[in-house]
């Protein structure tokens, strides 16, 4: 099957949906196709977000204050032209989202909704707002439906970007429902395919274990098309809950929202908020490594030490879990919570190293253009906005701010160019490649995914060394030599999730390799990238690592417009 569209949007989370809407508003004559791996609003990561968002709303606060905080937390590795956009356009885009029906819940108790990771010593402003992901996506979905020039394709996965002469001209797409391929010719393509948490065994992107929505497909597709990716070593980790086993997503919320204290096995508080997320991870890692961890190998977030009362903690928990929407989950948590329903008595054990967010990605400018003609990127798949560390509450703002910009730029570009007919054999080749996974014997994709997750956690986690990173590289080589050639999908074309995984797995290996090679290159510690063998931040490393086709590594300057280190 073949389709033609002016603008193709890959990914139906917040960034993709917002891009499609902006392109549709740009000109009602433009046709827009948006692809999503499941039903829009029931798949991807935006819907699962707890919903903390920060934008400037207090009269004493200013975009300049926010910009300075973001750059300090990002360890000056942010492209400042992008930070300016994020700080300035956040309020406008959030207001628009609320107008479209997203429900903002009130913050109560605690510090009244401040950002927990304001850098130490910086003035603190109340900036956090709370829009649970599910109402956020419901609003975007409703808005998508209001534009007749948008066609949503659900249960589809893009498998390859099509290029000619450094320009992206569309994509091949698998219709998961039928197992058929679609060739989509597009004048402009927006990549909004999200992150890669599932490369790690524990990730807030997949609280029940891997499920195939944050596998880093977008990074790999851009890479194979000739795109430039920056800062691929920058994985943001958060706590991974060890005990009790009920699932909260991100246990850090117990501290930032409910006032829990970070305490080691000896009962001593080992850090005080506010702290950037990377510092929390490193300090927790240090406690455990130096023998002050629990028997399970973790440390505590201790709610018995919270300044809040039982009632206040429960109220905050209900907000962080959007209890009014997630009634079943709330009942379950109460039923399973260490036999003590009073949260004031909870001590939650966690280990560092749950993959939470990816700061690196496809390099963009403030118009969301990439180095390839006709290719735009927005959201987690793009890099440069957050530098070496993302402040809490910025991801959900980033996706609508840059989603809208990508949609607008793609629409303008689409109006200025024509379609390019891809080579006749393109669809046939892709069909043959992907049907090649149907074999009687071989290695199941899940086996390879588990192997990737195991070595990424062991060698490419919170604390890295050259020795470990090289071990990871040899694991990758072994996967390429022994496992990938035998990669096998279950039989059957219709809704075959094993086949979808088989399509994703080689890309996951590519992305793992990009992370490891970039991490080896950066011989310093900065933000989320902590090298035990190079523990200091080195001013000479104030530059992006960059990776291109054939794993070609180089560095490229950070864009500094407002704030230099030391100011």
């Amino acid at each position, binding site marked *: 099957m073949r389709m033609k569209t002016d603008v193709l949007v890959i990914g139906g989370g917040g960034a993709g949906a917002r891009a499609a809407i902006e392109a549709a508003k740009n000109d009602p004559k433009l046709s827009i196709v948006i692809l999503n791996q499941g*039903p829009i609003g*029931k*798949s991807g990561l935006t819907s699962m977000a707890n919903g903390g968002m920060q934008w400037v709303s207090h009269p004493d606060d200013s975009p300049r204050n926010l910009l300075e905080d973001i750059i300090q937390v990002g360890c000056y590795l942010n492209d400042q032209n992008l930070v300016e956009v994020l700080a300035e356009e956040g309020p406008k885009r959030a207001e628009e989202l609320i107008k479209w029906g997203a429900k903002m819940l009130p913050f109560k108790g605690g510090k009244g909704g401040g950002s927990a990771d304001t850098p130490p010593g910086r003035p603190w402003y109340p900036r956090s707002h709370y829009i649970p992901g599910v109402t956020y996506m419901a609003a975007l979905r409703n808005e998508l439906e209001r534009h007749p020039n948008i066609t949503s394709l659900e249960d589809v996965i893009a498998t390859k970007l099509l290029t000619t002469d450094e320009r992206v001209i569309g994509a091949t797409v698998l219709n998961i429902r039928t197992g058929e391929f679609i060739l989509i010719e597009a004048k402009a393509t927006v990549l909004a395919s999200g992150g890669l948490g599932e490369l790690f065994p524990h990730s807030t992107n997949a609280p*029940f274990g891997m499920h195939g929505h944050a596998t880093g497909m977008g990074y790999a597709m851009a890479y194979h098309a000739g795109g430039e990716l920056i800062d691929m070593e920058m994985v943001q980790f958060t706590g991974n809950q060890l005990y009790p086993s009920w699932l909260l997503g991100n246990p850090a919320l117990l501290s930032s929202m409910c006032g829990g204290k970070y305490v080691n096995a000896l009962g001593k508080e080992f850090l005080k908020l506010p702290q950037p997320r990377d510092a929390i991870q490193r300090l927790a890692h240090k406690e455990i490594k130096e023998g002050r961890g629990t028997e399970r190998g973790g440390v505590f977030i201790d709610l018995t030490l919270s300044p809040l009362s039982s009632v206040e903690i429960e109220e905050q928990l209900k907000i962080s879990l959007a209890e009014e929407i997630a*009634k*079943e*989950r709330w009942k379950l948590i109460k039923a399973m919570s260490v036999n003590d329903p009073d949260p004031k008595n909870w001590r939650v054990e966690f280990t560092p190293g749950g993959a939470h967010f990816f700061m690196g990605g496809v390099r963009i400018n403030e118009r969301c253009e990439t180095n390839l003609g006709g290719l735009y990127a927005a959201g987690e798949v793009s890099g440069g906005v957050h530098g070496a560390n993302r402040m809490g509450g910025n991801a959900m703002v980033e996706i609508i701010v840059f989603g809208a910009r990508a949609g607008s730029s793609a629409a303008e570009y689409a109006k200025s160019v024509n379609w390019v007919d891809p080579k006749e054999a393109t669809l046939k080749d892709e069909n043959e490649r992907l049907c090649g996974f149907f074999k009687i014997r071989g290695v199941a994709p899940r086996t390879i995914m588990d192997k990737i997750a195991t070595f990424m956690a062991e060698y490419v986690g919170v604390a890295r060394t050259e020795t470990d990173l090289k071990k990871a590289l040899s694991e990758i080589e072994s996967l390429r030599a022994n496992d990938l050639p035998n990669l096998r999908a279950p039989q*059957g074309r*219709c*809704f075959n999730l094993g086949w979808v995984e088989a399509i994703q797995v080689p890309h996951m290996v590519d992305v793992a390799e990009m992370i490891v090679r970039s991490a080896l290159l950066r011989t310093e510690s900065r933000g989320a990238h902590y090298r035990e063998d190079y523990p200091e931040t080195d001013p000479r490393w104030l530059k992006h690592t960059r990776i291109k086709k054939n794993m070609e590594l180089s560095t490229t300057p950070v864009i500094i417009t407002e704030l230099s280190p030391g100011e």
Partner: protein
Amino acid sequence: MKMSDELILLKVFRYDPSTDRAPRYEEYQVPWRDGLLLLSALKYVRDNLDETLAFRDYCCGCSWCMSCIMMVDGKGMQTCSRPLKPGERLLVEPMRGYPVIKDLAVDFGVTIMTPEGAFKKMEGTVIRKEKVDSY
């Protein structure tokens, strides 16, 4: 505790419109563990017992998104928030009122948070509306 009490028995609706003339039911035994949820048990089936089983995985895992809703013993529920007790026997079927794509995966059509809307009928699919007894 006897061994058999620690197994969960799932009777699961199976139907592949591209090959099957009619739906059928298959039974799977899943070892129980503390904190096991129905959706995790289905993932266990797919990873260990039958790799062809199709169902919609969780999106949020927090009982928000309704991606994982199915009929369990004739009652619609979010399987990500359904804890299992040792020895439980359950009948698991696709959510009623939506066209079946394959097995437990349905086409939610154009509706999302409000199931009382129009849904698109897809050709060659079964729409389950009849009431089914529990297992």
